[in-house]
Structure formats: structure tokens, C-alpha cells
């Protein structure tokens, strides 16, 4: 289905849509307070954008440096060209060590690669240990937001889910007690796990270290208990120097949730004593994205979710209306980058208000990319034929002043004599709006009447 169809459905439940909008606006407002407390905020954003541009320009060198340094620490580095290769590598590592129980912390990359279903089909138990992710996993749903995976659910719904899945008492909706129930449930999973899989927020080329940021400490527990840690990262996660982290860690949590820093920012250099660390570096279309000048800035995305929280459309249509691994403004440019036909409605799920680009901590030109996508979709014949016909007609009329005047005059006569029919023709507008009173004469006509120039 297209975005408008799913969005209209979301909006129909007005009360829930309002609640969803307000929940996310609350996060945006918290982010504003955090950002405005840093006088050098815009300078940080500029630095972050410049670092990311430098990384894109020298990516191969940085990746090789990172690999060499990580190996010195005893990590095993694997390279995956696409999602299938990534899943196969992870599976081989797990199978050769007879692992059947895995705990996993948040990673949009493994969502992108479909790792969970891939491993589950092979008989493994994969437990997402981030609370929000565990909630959607128990509901057999994907995350609806990249930082707040269960933001579409109310605490009462979580209570019902936990009653069914974890045996908590009926009617439980107190967040603290629900969290406690999840903690107990997850503790068992942590203790039983034979391997921990994590994402990577930053990989430092000069040190070979990786950084994982969480608020729940689940990545730490998931890598400290089992002897095997597999860290999965896209090639764009590289930063050149450890010092660069000072820029990104200041931006990440403030942009994401308005916190000064994530509760846990874990720096890992090699495996823990007696254990193994495998780092899987994945391309999966990223070098292709880098080749397209109009869209390459999207590779700088640090997955903070700020553009989702600020997007007036996302807040009122929900993550699932995008039918993409990553929803919201960043997802609306990444989606068509992977499969333009499938995601053709996403660049139009946007008023071009530009809030996303202004909120983005790495200054990705999101609204410009969505504008550009529209033109690419038209060029490749993927936009709706109706839209193209309307544009052609409008352009034809506007190019010919006399035709413009004649058509406008005719439209006014029709609107005056048959308001019902006019309203029906413009039903997309009149579904919720009254038509304006149509002036008898246009500005151009009135000016001619005045004989003025």
C-alpha cells in the first residue's frame, strides 16, 4: 500500500494519532532544550558534517586502518557485500560454535539485513534485549521508530502483552513495574545466552575500537556474559579518530532523546578475556549510495531519530505507514535508494517543511533529497501518471498567458454557477476544507480595468 492510504488509516483513529503526535513532540521539545543549552551546538553540527564528509571521501583507507587496528586487539574482522552475506557470516560463526541461544542489542543494520528471521529459521532463539525492541518482538512486529521501537504502543497495551507472554498480573500498566517484569524475563535470557550480537554506533579507525551506545546497558550485559560477541556495522560507521567521538557523543543522545549522553557508552577494544569478538562490516548498497551525489549525505546518518520526532507527517502517520525498515524523513530517502518502485510514495509523504534538515545533527540535506527524489521518480516513470499529466497541463496553461486567463475565467464561471460540481471535482481539497470565496475578477483583470501599469 502507499503511504497516503496507510497514513489516512492512522489518522482515522484521531485520538491515538493525537497521542502519537504529542508523545513524539515531547521528545522533540526535550531535544530542543538540550540543544539550546549548548551555545556551540551549530558548530558541533558543522564539525560532525565535516567529519562525515571526510570519512566518505577516504572511506576505503579508514576501513582498512580500522581492520588492521581491530585485528591487533584480537578481533576477527569479516566483510559482507550484502545482507545475505552478512547473515551467512553470522550464521557460520554461530553454527560452528553450536550456539542456539543469542541475545541481541539494538541494531538497525540487522533489521535491514533481516538477521532475526534468518537465524530463527535455522532453529536459533534470538532475543532482542532492548526493552522497546523486546516488546515489538513479542508482538511479532518490526520497530516503528529507530530509537523508540515501541513508541506506537501505550503502556496498557504493553501490560496486556506482558500478561499474555510473560504471565504478569492482569491490568498492569505501571511503567516501572512493567520494566521490572521485562528485566526479570530478560535476565534469564542473558544468563542462558551463548552469544551476544550488537550493533555499532561508531568504529574508530585509528584505534580499532568500537563504541556501542545504549540506555539500558543491555549491550554490556549481552557481551559480558556470553563468551562470543558479534558486532555488526555498516561501512559508514567509521570515524577517523577517538577525538571525533567527542563531537558525536555530544550530538547523539541530545538529538535522540534530549539526554546529555546515553546512559552507557561502551568502548570495546578486542574481545574480553577468554572470549571472541567478531566484527562484520557490511556494504549492502552503501557504496552505491555514495556514488549518487544527490543522496550521498544520507550515509552520514547516525540513527538518532531526531528527524522522525520532528517530522509533522511521521508524528501523525506512524512508523508503519512507511513500510520501510527505517521510516520518517531519513527512511524516505534511504527507501527509494534501495528500491525506488516499492518506496515511490515516500518522497511525497512530506510537505518540504525542512524541519528534518535543521534538526539533523550531521546536517543531512533531507528535504532537498526528498525534493530531488521526486524529480528522479518522474524521470524514471515511477511517479503517478495523474501527477505527471496534471503537471504537463498546468505548465501548458501557465506558459500561455492568454490560455491562463481564459481557463481561469472559465473556472470562475463554473465555480459560481455550479458550486456543487466544483466542490466534487476538487474533492481532495473539499474533503475537509471549504472552498474560498472566489473573487469576481483576478488581480490582473482588475489592474487592466484600472488602466494602470
Amino acid at each position, binding site marked *: 500500500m502507499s503511504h*497516503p492510504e496507510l*497514513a*489516512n*488509516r*492512522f*489518522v482515522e483513529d484521531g485520538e491515538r494519532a493525537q497521542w502519537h*503526535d504529542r508523545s513524539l*513532540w515531547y521528545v522533540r521539545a526535550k531535544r530542543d532544550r538540550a*540543544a539550546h543549552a549548548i551555545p556551540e551546538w*551549530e558548530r558541533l553540527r558543522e564539525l560532525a558534517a565535516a567529519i562525515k564528509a571526510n570519512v566518505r571521501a577516504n572511506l576505503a583507507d579508514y576501513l582498512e586502518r580500522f581492520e588492521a587496528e581491530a585485528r591487533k586487539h584480537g578481533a576477527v574482522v569479516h566483510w559482507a557485500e550484502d545482507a545475505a552475506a552478512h547473515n551467512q557470516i553470522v550464521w557460520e560463526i554461530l553454527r560452528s560454535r553450536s550456539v542456539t541461544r543469542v541475545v541481541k542489542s539494538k541494531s538497525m543494520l540487522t533489521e535491514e539485513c533481516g538477521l532475526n528471521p534468518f537465524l530463527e529459521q535455522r532453529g536459533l532463539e534470538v532475543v532482542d534485549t532492548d526493552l522497546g525492541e523486546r516488546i515489538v518482538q513479542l508482538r511479532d512486529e518490526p520497530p516503528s521508530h529507530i530509537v523508540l521501537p515501541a513508541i506506537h504502543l501505550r503502556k496498557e497495551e504493553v501490560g496486556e502483552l506482558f500478561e499474555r507472554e510473560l504471565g504478569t498480573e492482569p491490568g498492569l500498566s505501571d511503567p516501572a513495574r512493567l520494566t521490572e517484569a521485562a528485566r526479570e524475563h530478560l535476565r534469564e535470557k542473558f544468563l542462558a545466552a551463548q552469544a551476544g550480537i550488537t550493533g555499532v554506533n561508531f568504529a574508530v579507525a585509528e584505534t580499532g575500537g568500537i563504541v556501542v551506545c545504549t540506555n539500558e546497558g543491555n549491550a554490556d550485559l549481552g557481551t559480558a556474559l556470553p563468551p562470543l560477541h558479534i558486532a555488526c556495522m555498516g561501512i559508514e560507521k567509521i570515524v577517523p579518530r577517538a577525538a571525533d567521538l567527542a563531537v558525536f557523543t555530544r550530538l547523539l543522545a541530545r538529538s535522540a532523546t534530549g539526554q546529555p549522553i546515553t546512559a552507557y557508552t561502551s568502548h570495546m577494544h578486542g574481545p574480553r578475556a577468554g572470549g571472541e569478538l567478531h566484527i562484520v562490516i557490511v556494504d549492502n548498497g552503501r557504496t552505491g549510495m555514495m556514488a549518487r551525489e544527490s543522496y550521498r549525505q544520507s550515509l552520514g546518518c547516525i540513527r538518532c531519530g531526531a528527524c522522525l520526532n*520532528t517530522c*509533522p*507527517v511521521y508524528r*501523525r*502517520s506512524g512508523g508503519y505507514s512507511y513500510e520501510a525498515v527505517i521510516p520518517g524523513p531519513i527512511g524516505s530517502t534511504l527507501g527509494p535508494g534501495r528500491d525506488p518502485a516499492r518506496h515511490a510514495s515516500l518522497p*511525497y*509523504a512530506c*510537505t*518540504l*517543511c*525542512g*524541519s528534518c534538515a*535543521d534538526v539533523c545533527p550531521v546536517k543531512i540535506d533531507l528535504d532537498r533529497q526528498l*525534493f530531488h*527524489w*521526486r*524529480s*528522479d*521518480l*518522474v*524521470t524514471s516513470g515511477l*511517479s503517478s501518471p495523474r*501527477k*505527471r499529466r496534471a*503537471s*504537463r497541463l*498546468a*505548465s501548458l496553461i*501557465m*506558459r500561455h*498567458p492568454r490560455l*491562463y486567463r481564459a481557463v*481561469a475565467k472559465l*473556472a*470562475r464561471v463554473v465555480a459560481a454557477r455550479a458550486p456543487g460540481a466544483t466542490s466534487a471535482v476538487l474533492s*481532495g*481539497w473539499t*474533503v*475537509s*476544507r471549504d*472552498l*474560498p470565496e*472566489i*473573487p469576481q475578477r*483576478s*488581480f*490582473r483583470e*482588475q*489592474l487592466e480595468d484600472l488602466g494602470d*501599469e
Partner: protein
Amino acid sequence: MSDRLANVRVALFVPCYVDQLAPQVAFASLRVLARFGVKASFVSDPACCGQPMANVGSADEARPLALSFLRSFAGFDYVVCPSGSCVSMVRNHYRGLVPDAAGLEICGRTMELCEFLSDVVGVDRIGGRFPHRVGLHKSCHGLRGLRLGSASELVETRPDPVGELLASIEGLQLVSLERADECCGFGGAFAVEESGVSTMMGRDRVDDHVRAGAEVIASIDMSCLLHLQGLMRRRSVGVRAMHVAEIFDACGGDA
């Protein structure tokens, strides 16, 4: 100030939807410009900057209009337009749409009305009286496209010609909104194509103004206002939508 501007050639660009649906805004713009000593010529063609086509991705259909715009206004020092959105199209999207050789010089001197009054004419006070509670709906293309004022996302302070000129009017009280600069949901074809979300966005903007006790919603973009006005009329909300040029014009002034 009129002396300094005596030899400056200023053209008024009246976009199609203002021409057809809100001619009073174009007249108000001319009168306000004249009040501050600017005799603007009206150039009739083209009536469209090409934005509606460009926004849906039809660059090929937008290009002839952009070229026609550049030809028509090439001989002027400034083009003034009572629509932030059209100005943003000219300034931010013509480069890349048409060849550089087409003469893009005028793009940088195509200005929104308040911006022109403030930056070029040097107006800091409109004068006159408008004793009403006004909510300023900051249109996105004016705010983030032309940088008229500080967007709430950014940690910076910029001049806000629209707000400052409104605030300079005696009796006019600017109300403070819960969401200072959220989009109203018009978005051109978006209003029709994504009617559910567009409607909800617009109603939320209206409700914010109603809660703040606004009698008038003011904006530099008639397109946002036509959308908000249509929503308000359907629900019989007693708030007026007025273009800032209409307010400047209505308060008489004393310059």
C-alpha cells in the same frame, strides 16, 4: 528613503494563486510598497514560478516557467513577491533547474515583501494601528527556505522581519503559540494527496492559535492561509486568516 530608491527598478511578482484567489493581497502589497516610497512595476507574465510542477518532480514542466520568469524580470533590480514559497522556489531551486547561462542574477534579488521592506527599504516600523491579537503562522518556506527568523530547531538568532514589522504596529499583540513554527500541512499537492495528515496538521495549527486567543492568523504565504481558512470555515472557527500585506495595508500606517 524614497530618494535612495528613486532609481531602483522594482517589479512585483503576483503568483497565480494570489492573482486568482486573493487579488486583494496583491493590491495591498502595491499600496504598502508605495507608502514606503517604492513604485513597483507589475509584470504580468509569467503568472507562475514553476513551483507546483517542480514540487511534484516535473522539472521539465517547471523549467520553461523558470526561464520565462528570468527573462521577464532580468531588467529589474529587485523582484518583490507577497509569497515566501514562490521566492524560495526562485532563490533555492532555480539553480540546477535551468542552465547557469540563463541569468540567475535576479534570483538573489527576488525577495519576499517583508524581507524587502526591512532589508532593502530599511523599514523598521509599519506604523498605524491594528488592535487585534494576532498569531503569526511562520510558513516553512519563509522560515527555513529564506531564513526569515530563527527556526526553533537551530541554536541561533536571526532577524525576523515578519514578526518585527508586525510587532511594530500599535495595538497589535502577537500571541505566543505552543508550537512556534510547525508546518500547517498545506504542501501543495500534499494537501490533496495526503489529505488525512494534511487536515490533521492544519487543524492542529488552528487549534494552537485558538488556544492562544488569536483573532487573526497572519502569514506571508497565502497558500498556507487558504488551507487553514478552508479548514476553519468548514468547522465555523471564528478566526480570520490574513496575509501580512493585508494587515500592513489595513492599519493605515503613518510613514
